[in-house]
């Protein structure tokens, strides 16, 4: 007895055959088939091996809720764990079964099944503990090798796209209820988005034989009419092959669209779209999911959910087996029996757990008419067979077992409203005693649930259920819809979670979670060991933690647990449904913002010049800054820095400082504001002069530094570190808007309005006088730390006399459009004076020779101005500034805090390494008492030896004494502790 095509299904192109390979063997399916429906057509029974016991597993369902049929798509970067029941086939598709070695037929690890009595729930927690060290070396490697289902995929550099939507209404589910809702909103002005996970609309209309006519039209034509009506409406957009996966807060829906359904994805083209949807109201019409019944060996291939069996017939045009046995505890089997009879594939037997008088007369009539063997008040006790169902044992009302030879068993344990998305929206569920399932009750967001998703299983009540829920949208009322049904309109169900095994055996199992191999015995054992709270039980047994998240079994588990604890199921409660609804591809979450779109690459206006002149770049925040310049191709960092550092101390160098933050501050209270924001006192500063300033957090720790240029008491320009630019501006905005709104002061970032060129070195004045013929640079007309505006190429530029290298220097602020011209002018005149361009590494070295700190390197957020020997920058007379009060707390007032010092190796062959620690003796056997650490260290060509800056405990008092510095490669060596300024400590060069 094998599968047979049902040519009536309009959704399969029986004239277009498609060849694909499964585990190396070529099979034929039709256009529109899923991998599962195609394999069923070819009578393939085993599709995979279970996670723990490696038992053979078959196709159990016909949709997203599938626990067993997960395959590896070799022709798509061998994507693992793909649902065969959803993925459609295409010519040249190559797939492979998972979690078995060497083959599906005979999998060596099925030995686990023999040892299964040992592998009870929580097995790992109670063993693998002895002998010591075996866990790391022996047991865990074995367990890890056996873990997981699919193999790791091949590297895949994706570029899938994302799309944002802003709509009034989203309808999730294009089934009967979804279409009715959409139809009624077609004429309103509301912007509606209808999402359907299948390639066709219709839901239960296309997936089952339950409704024979609707509004006296046959199913297919009703769907077509509604679809055309929706197409003509201007306000409804339909997204097919799109699955809603996440319902985030404030009605924010994430849905994933498969662009290559039934096609081979093209290299370099988007294969998925992640829809990010904001809606005022979300209508959930995503229907229901059928659940299983637990009985002995209910995992054998050849067992399938009845609704899925019917869906394969209707939707995919294949009858998995021409004479199945049907076992149900509810009234939903009539339409399946009827379609089988219409296709003259009479079921071999019908087993109903309900007593005869409870069974619908229409169902009994058709069974008697077709004399189908009937078992009422009966259960399937279990199944037996070698790697598939061969014999079904049925226990009738008197407890007598009859065995039927059959290869196919359809089971139906009832229907659960698909509440996963509703619980993600943080609505609350309630237990329905009539339908024995959880259904949505109070919603938290603007969520409307209609149809069977809301627990409504009666077609006659559907119309006014929708009308009452959508009336506030003044939709077009549906009033009523007449149906001709192939089943009774009042769906009835009798409680049956599990049937009793005939004989006790350690090896017989009835499964609750097929994918994670969790049996009902595991549930009982869990509760016996004290895991009686449902969340504990889920973690102890890993029930419903597989890739299907227990869609067809988690309610059954609650039923069984409530019986064991003899509590009401509503008291047991549910576990929390965690997003996403179904596994969501990492590639689609990342979208296009990876690789070159991961983070902007900010470049200064003369970036191209740097590139052409041998610059090697470094990432500083989002900026690319020249790190050093290669004068010949292989020149490395150290060689270049030694050369540049010597050259600048002897001749001159220029650095592109455009990335440093620049903020323009103005207002009638600007002076008071600046005095509050910085430690310095700007009141007595003369206009057109500048001062190096320090900014603290309220905790008194150094946060940023920069040069403040005072145009006048109402107008300042502040520079900040590159990393601190955004932080300082938002710090200023925060305090001016929220703490001192009475102060009239405003600030604009002008970082990108000007390029900054910092030129310094003995020959600087000479070069500047050549470039700017009309400007006087002598000390009287241009004193140190003053600035002025000048014209250059009929545009205004600002020149500030300041220097971070300790040499005579100027900072030139110039508009981007003429920046390159000026930069090239500097070299045209400066080249023969020895002017070179230099990078950040040399700047770090030169400023360290002068003992200047770098905020963020020499400071780490835990040092005060006093610690860094910058006491002089604190305006003593100022009553208050941010952080001032924190400087006098018991720990910050201590004299033996960590303080900034300079260090020099006694034996000059030693090279001090940054990050190493200052210790008392050369003994480095841990634990070693540390005085502090080296914040910056360089090999100085100007001093002829390595030197460093360090922050050490009670540093000031240790100046002049000796200590040791640890090393990453050898033992510690001796250093001398000294003041942190190594060159020109009287600052003669700055004012020369």
């Amino acid at each position, binding site marked *: 007895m094998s599968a047979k095509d049902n040519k009536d299904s309009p959704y399969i192109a029986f004239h277009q055959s498609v060849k694909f390979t499964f585990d190396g063997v070529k099979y034929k399916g039709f256009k529109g088939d899923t991998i599962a429906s195609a394999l069923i057509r070819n009578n393939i029974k085993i599709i995979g091996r279970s996670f723990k016991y490696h038992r053979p597993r078959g196709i159990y369902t016909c949709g997203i809720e599938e626990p067993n049929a997960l395959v590896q798509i070799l022709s798509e970067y061998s994507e693992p764990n793909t649902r065969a029941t959803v993925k459609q086939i295409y010519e040249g598709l190559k797939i492979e079964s998972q979690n078995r070695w060497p083959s599906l037929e005979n999998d060596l690890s099925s030995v686990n099944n023999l040892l299964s009595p040992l592998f009870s729930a929580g097995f790992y927690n109670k063993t693998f503990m002895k002998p010591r060290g075996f866990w790391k070396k022996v047991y865990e490697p074995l367990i890890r090798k056996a873990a997981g289902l699919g193999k790791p995929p091949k590297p895949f550099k994706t570029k899938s796209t994302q*799309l944002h939507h802003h709509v009034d209404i989203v309808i999730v589910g294009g089934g009967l209820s979804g279409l009715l809702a959409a139809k009624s909103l077609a004429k309103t002005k509301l912007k509606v988005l209808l999402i359907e996970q299948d390639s066709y609309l219709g839901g239960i209309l296309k997936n089952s034989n339950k409704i024979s006519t609707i509004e006296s039209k046959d199913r297919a034509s009703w769907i077509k009419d509604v679809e055309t009506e929706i197409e003509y409406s201007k306000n409804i957009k339909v997204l097919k092959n799109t699955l809603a996966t996440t319902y985030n807060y404030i009605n924010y829906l994430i849905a994933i669209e498969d662009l290559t359904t039934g096609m081979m994805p093209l290299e370099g083209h*988007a294969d998925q779209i992640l829809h990010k949807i904001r809606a005022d109201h979300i209508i959930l019409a995503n229907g229901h999911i059928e659940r299983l019944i637990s009985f002995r060996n209910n995992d054998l291939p050849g067992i399938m959910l009845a609704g899925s069996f019917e869906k394969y017939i209707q939707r995919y045009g294949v009858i998995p087996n021409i004479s199945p046995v049907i076992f149900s505890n509810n009234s939903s089997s009539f339409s399946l029996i009827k379609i089988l009879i219409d296709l003259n594939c009479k079921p071999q037997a019908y087993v109903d757990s309900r007593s005869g008088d409870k069974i619908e007369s229409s169902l009994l009539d058709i069974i008697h008419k077709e004399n189908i063997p009937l078992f009422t008040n009966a259960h399937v006790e279990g199944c037996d067979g070698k790697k598939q169902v061969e014999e079904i044992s049925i226990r009738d009302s008197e407890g007598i077992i009859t065995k039927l030879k059959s290869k196919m068993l359809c089971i139906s344990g009832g229907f659960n409203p698909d509440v996963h998305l509703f619980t993600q929206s943080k609505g609350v569920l309630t237990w329905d005693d009539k339908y024995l399932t959880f259904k949505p009750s109070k919603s938290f967001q603007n969520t409307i649930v209609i149809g069977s998703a809301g627990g409504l299983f009666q077609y006659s009540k559907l119309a006014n259920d929708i009308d009452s829920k959508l009336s506030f949208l003044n939709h077009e009322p549906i009033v009523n819809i007449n149906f001709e049904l192939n089943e009774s309109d009042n769906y009835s169900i009798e409680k049956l979670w599990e049937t009793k095994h005939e004989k006790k055996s350690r090896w017989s199992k009835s499964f609750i979670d097929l994918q994670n191999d969790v049996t009902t015995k595991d549930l009982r054992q869990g509760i016996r060991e004290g895991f009686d709270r449902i969340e504990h039980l889920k973690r102890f047994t890993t029930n419903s933690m597989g890739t299907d998240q227990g869609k067809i079994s988690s309610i059954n588990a609650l039923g069984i647990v409530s019986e064991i604890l003899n509590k009401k199921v509503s008291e047991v409660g549910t576990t929390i449904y965690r997003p996403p609804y179904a596994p969501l591809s990492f590639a689609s979450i990342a979208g296009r*913002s990876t690789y070159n779109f991961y983070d902007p690459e900010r470049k*200064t206006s003369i970036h191209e010049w740097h590139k052409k002149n041998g610059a090697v770049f470094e990432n500083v925040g989002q900026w690319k800054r020249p790190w050093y310049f290669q004068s010949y191709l292989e020149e490395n960092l150290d060689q270049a820095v030694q050369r540049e550092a010597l050259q600048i101390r002897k001749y001159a160098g220029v650095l592109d400082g455009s990335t440093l933050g620049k903020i*323009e501050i103005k*207002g009638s209270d600007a002076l008071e504001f600046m005095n509050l924001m910085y430690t310095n006192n700007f009141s007595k500063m003369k206009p057109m002069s500048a001062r190096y300033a320090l900014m603290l957090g309220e905790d008194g720790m150094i946060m940023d530094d920069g040069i403040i240029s005072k145009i006048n008491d109402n107008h300042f320009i502040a520079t900040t570190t590159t990393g601190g630019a955004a932080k300082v501006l938002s710090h200023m905005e925060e305090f001016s808007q929220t703490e001192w709104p009475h102060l009239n002061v405003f600030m604009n970032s002008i970082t*990108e*309005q000007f390029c900054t060129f910092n030129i310094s070195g003995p020959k600087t004045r000479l070069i500047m006088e050549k470039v700017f013929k009309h400007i006087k640079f002598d000390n009287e007309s241009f004193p140190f730390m003053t600035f002025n505006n000048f014209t250059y190429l009929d545009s205004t530029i600002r020149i500030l006399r300041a220097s971070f290298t300790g040499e005579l220097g100027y900072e030139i602020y110039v508009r*981007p459009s003429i920046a390159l011209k000026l930069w090239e002018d500097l070299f045209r005149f400066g080249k023969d004076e020895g002017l070179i361009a230099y990078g950040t590494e040399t700047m770090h070295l030169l400023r360290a020779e002068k003992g200047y700190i770098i905020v963020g390197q020499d400071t780490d957020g835990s040092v005060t101005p006093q610690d860094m020997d910058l006491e002089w920058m604190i305006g003593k007379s100022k009553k208050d500034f941010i952080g001032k009060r924190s400087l006098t707390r018991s720990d910050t007032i201590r004299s033996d805090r960590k303080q900034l010092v300079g260090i020099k190796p006694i034996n000059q062959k030693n090279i001090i390494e940054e990050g190493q620690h200052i210790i008392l003796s050369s003994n480095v056997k841990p634990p070693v008492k540390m005085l502090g650490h080296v914040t910056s260290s360089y090999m100085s060509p100007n001093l002829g030896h390595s030197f460093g800056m360090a922050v050490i405990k009670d540093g000031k008092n240790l100046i002049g004494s000796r200590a040791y510095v640890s090393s990453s490669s050898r033992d510690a060596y001796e250093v001398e502790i000294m003041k942190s300024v190594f060159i020109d400590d009287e600052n003669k060069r700055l004012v020369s």
Partner: protein
Amino acid sequence: MKNLISSNSVDIKELNLNQILVRGLYTPSLNKQIKSQFKISLPQNNLQINQDKNIICSKNSFDQWSIILFQQLEFEIDNAIAKINEDEKILATNYSEGQIYLEISGENKISILNKITHFDFREKHFPLSTSAQTLIGRVDCNIYNLGNRLLVTCNRSFGDHLKDQLIDAIKF
């Protein structure tokens, strides 16, 4: 004016415009000052744009306006800014060169932008002749709704990153 891309009915041009950022609280004298310099008055409510032939002035927030001139030579702007800055309570800054200016037009412009920004372009949230500051492709931008064309500006150093993403959204 450079034509960046125009395909599947979206055109993006890069313009060279001048822009002045004005910070300060509204006073009639400030309004008079701006009117005399640029022949346009300051809009009253937030995000509103006053439009003249080749000049737009938008109120970005309660203490901030941006004036964009479609063509005016640079030196005149500096004089105008110096004049406005004479009032100690007002800060005017020349933002011309620090930003890039993109004009996006074409029927598909919104569906393309919806690929890289979460911003809601619907009329009720972004009416005609209003402006907004938001993120496009993770870049801070100003958008000006001038009817069939959108003017989008962002800081110059982020310019390439924004342009690449717009072009990519159109092509891919």
